[in-house]
């Protein structure tokens, strides 16, 4: 149970970074932290003590397998995280090109 709480703590650290940091790249890093925390949580949910990785081999074992579904979900979530991070970085680069800064306190043309 405590280890789940640590995952949530990591999630909140990422959220803290997104909310308080002023640099666009640091905000993206905050998102990366959140994604890691959720993926870690998924992997831990599937974990069983003393169980093997869910791969069928020629050697027959008496061990149990860990739950494979969270691992599949983590793979999918990683791919999605890759996509969002790439789009975010691309847009951050473009913003730098237009505003010549990564500081969000100087990027505020939209108001009202």
């Amino acid at each position: 149970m405590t280890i789940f709480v640590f995952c949530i703590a990591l999630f909140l650290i990422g959220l803290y970074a997104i909310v308080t940091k002023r640099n666009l790249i640091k905000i993206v890093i905050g998102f990366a932290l959140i994604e890691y925390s959720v993926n870690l949580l998924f992997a831990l949910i599937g974990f069983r003590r003393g169980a093997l990785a869910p791969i069928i081999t020629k050697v027959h074992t008496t061990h149990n397998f860990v739950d494979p579904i969270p691992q599949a979900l983590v793979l999918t979530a990683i791919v999605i995280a890759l996509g969002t991070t790439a789009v975010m970085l691309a847009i951050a680069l473009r913003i730098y090109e237009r505003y010549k800064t990564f500081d969000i306190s100087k990027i505020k043309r939209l108001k009202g």
Partner: protein
Amino acid sequence: MKGMSLIVKTITNIVIGFIFLYGLYIILHGHLTPGGGFAGGVIIAGVFVLKYLAYGSSKAGEKKSSIISSVFESVGALLFVGIALLGLLLTGVFFLNFIPRGTPLHLLSAGIIPLCNIAIGIKVGAGLFSIFLALAAFKYIMED
């Protein structure tokens, strides 16, 4: 972008084939061992990224490789959806296996899963390289 020193170029030349082969291995054994289309595709994209970093590239070369990788990306995605749709056409169920399953734990087994892995490998390899190009050389690519 300029290339790197002679040492880097030589080592790259030696290593690049092995990395590519390893990526192919990961893709083709996706249904037997850990890995598969995504992991192998990332390794194959790594080959192109390595070559790009070691040798550098001109504006024209970047444009050309971005076009080629976008074509490969579309082809990979279409292959994947095409396999799923073939299942719909041949068996009446989306994504259902339509070729013989073979014996388990052999290279030619698991029905359409290796084909899907190959399609994903093409898609991910080309896609990741496009992402790399878009971030590394976005000034040139976006101008077209």
